[in-house]
């Protein structure tokens, strides 16, 4: 069986839970301190699809500025992206739309899976089902996830893997 290798990027506003989601999905041997020093941390996860194995190299980015730190060199060569929103902060949706437009400008269209994260915080939930419909209308595949309970995380990553295979 051959192994396919793909690069994918974690994208989304500050503090939506990108790093936490990767940590939930991957058991990493390397420390997270590279995020603040180099600005990027690369993680690897092997996934078994129907006919093949795939190694996902997941690039996670650090930055509190939402958009500027997404540079062309970070996106270069990525086969797909995981775009993360925070379900308790409605403004992260607008940032996600901006990021989506920026990616398309810089690298052209690639498959994108959207994760509305922190779904364990029901009390502060701010995203309505109409909003989710709106996202699906943009052609996004949308998942509600929680890096805390693990809900939806595996499915979202697998969906992206299938889309870029």
């Amino acid at each position, binding site marked *: 069986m051959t192994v*396919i290798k793909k*690069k994918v990027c974690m994208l989304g506003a500050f*503090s939506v839970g990108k790093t936490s989601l990767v940590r939930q999905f991957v058991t990493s041997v390397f420390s997270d301190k590279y995020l603040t020093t180099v600005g990027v941390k690369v993680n690897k996860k092997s996934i078994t699809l129907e006919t093949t194995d795939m190694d996902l190299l997941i690039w996670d980015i650090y930055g509190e500025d939402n958009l500027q730190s997404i540079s062309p060199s970070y996106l*270069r060569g990525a086969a797909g992206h995981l775009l993360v929103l925070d379900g308790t902060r409605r403004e992260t949706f607008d940032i996600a739309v901006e990021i989506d437009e920026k990616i398309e400008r810089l690298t052209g269209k690639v498959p994108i899976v959207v994760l509305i994260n922190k779904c364990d915080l029901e*009390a502060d939930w701010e995203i309505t089902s109409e909003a989710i419909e709106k996202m699906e209308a943009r052609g996004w595949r949308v998942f509600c996830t929680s890096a805390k309970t693990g809900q939806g995380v595996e499915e979202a990553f697998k969906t992206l893997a299938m889309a870029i295979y």
Partner: protein
Amino acid sequence: MTPHATSTDPVKALSESRADSESPHTSDAATTPLDGVPSAHSLTEHFLDRLERIQEDAVAVSRVLPGAVARCVQSGGLGEALTPAVERALLLISRRNPRSLAEALTPSVGAALRRSLWASMFHFFRRVNFWMLQHVSMKGMQWRMEAQRSGKSFDEVVTEHTQDSPVRQVFLIHRETGLVLQEAQSLSTSSPQDWDIISGMLTALQDFIHDSFNLNQDTPLETIKVGDVTVLIEQGPYAAVAGILDGSMRPEYATRFKDACSRIHGEFSKELSTFDGDTAPFDTCAPYLDSCMHNLINPDRLPILPQTMLVLLLPFLLLATWTLPGVVDSVRWKNYVLHLADEPGIIVIDHGRKDGAHFITGLRDPLAANPQDLLVQAGFTPSDVSSHWEPFQGLSSTLALARARRLLDPPDSVVLDMRDNVLTLEGTATRDWIRSARESLQRWIELDKFNMDGLSISNAGAQSQWLRFLKHIEREPGLSVITKGIDTDGRFTIVGLADPLARTPDALLAETGLASDEVVQQWAAYQSPDPRIAEKRARHLLNPPESVNLSVRDGVLHLEGEAPAPWIRLAETLSKSIPGVRSLYVDHLVNTDQRNLKQAIGRIEKNVFQLLAGAPDLRPGQADKLTQLTKDIAQLRRSARRNNIDFLIEIRGHTAPTGATQRDTLMAESLARSFLELLSRRSEDTRLFTRRSLGSTPPDIGGATLDKPDDRLVSFKVLLLD
């Protein structure tokens, strides 16, 4: 291309191409040879016309040619098509005018030649040393003995002792994605690490360094050294060959890596440019990577033998002993003359050798040092040297100016003059020159005999502005200098880290008045832990309401005042990601939602309602009180939700004692039920309530008693749940 181009008869080809072209020229088709025999006149006309059109065609083709070639290059095949033509052209040039070709090639060939000459000398030295090591050294004897003892061949033993393979691992990394396409490792290494991740990080690190210092993407980052490990990277257009070395870099590796990289690009160019995640096609490039790890003679393990030095230097040594005495003598003499020339008040006019002995003549100020003494110091016997010194006097003449000029060697921007026996210097010069000139003059003449007031430091203004700029930067929180200096164009350079929240270096520069084109700046963004910046960042990130006072002291983020619960929770999360903030201090921060919660509970629990004895209803006059209670309950629900707290309201029934405890309990129970009923009629959510019978125990509220026989009361208790 049209088929006419292959036609052998050019006239026919032209006429055919014209016949089927649709240009206006076809209208005079009557003059073409196809219409029978034309007149001589029309034939001339025809060819003139034809000639003109060929020229026009050439102009038109020249316009589209560059585009057409570019397209061919994209779709491939042009190289193959052109190769024979280019080869032939090169051959022709080299026959007809070899000089122009040589001139074009010399710059690169010359450098390569020099390098290879030096390399082959070095190689020769190493081979001699290696031979000596094996045949005329203690080590060689030991190896021979070892070979006899162990039964191995002598060569095997030598190889064991002198070669090693310090390249541990080699990877082929896809440049665009940072993915590992193929890897090879030496047998002796075990590798628990995941090279895909390391390769990705290496790629990100390269991007980071390139972006931070605005390097061109094609500037290769050749080696990264960490402790005893060196990472060597050879960049190709699509992929990089990277290796992990034990120990430090040697030029042989770079050559091997370059070679492997270009071979892989040659053989796998198609696979590399279309790579889409499948690494299987690259399995066959493993031999190229292996070639980077082959054993190498390690020069560190080969001592340089004194015998080798001796053998190689012997011819030179012989030559030296032959000529040495003469050389030593002439070097000593030269030093003596140079020393005299440096001496103030002495001018050498002539010196040399006459009849096998040294002679020297010159002028000497009586106050200057004695040349004869210096002669003895230099190791000569005065009687062996013919010295002739003419005295000359003081500062009274142009001679003095000449001496000064000789002593000081002033730049063109300085004018020397003698006024009233005072040597004056005017103009501009560097600070260093002025300092050394002052020192020389002080040693040479008295203080009141020279005047340097007319000298100014060149570019002193910029220098002091620059120093002010540096001081500003040092004082500014969030800016940190890595290196600074002056480049070859004389511009100031500075490289450092700048926090986006700090004042920009450009603004500071503008304040000093130093022109921005005199300074080359490179600033990489970082997050400063300076408390003032941390405070700014905290304010930026947390966006505190006006009622909150925010400050950072000793790495602690202090929040004082009052704020709603969701904001406090957000602040607790976000503050963890602020560099320079270690912990959070919120003891003086009032949670307004918590306060509202307590107040609502207090109001609810103060209530006592009187119920009718016979029916499940309130006694008259308590309607307003009930309305107020429902408002307080609504307030309680709001605050509890914002604090993430669940609660229940216990409705407690109390009845005047009837004499039988059992009956009291049932009665009180039904009072609580009646009140809940009442609330549910006012569409309160009954799930928020629970009931409890307190029998004939009165409510624990000041003034509430069960003294009258028809006292029927309910009171409330709010239960907070975790």
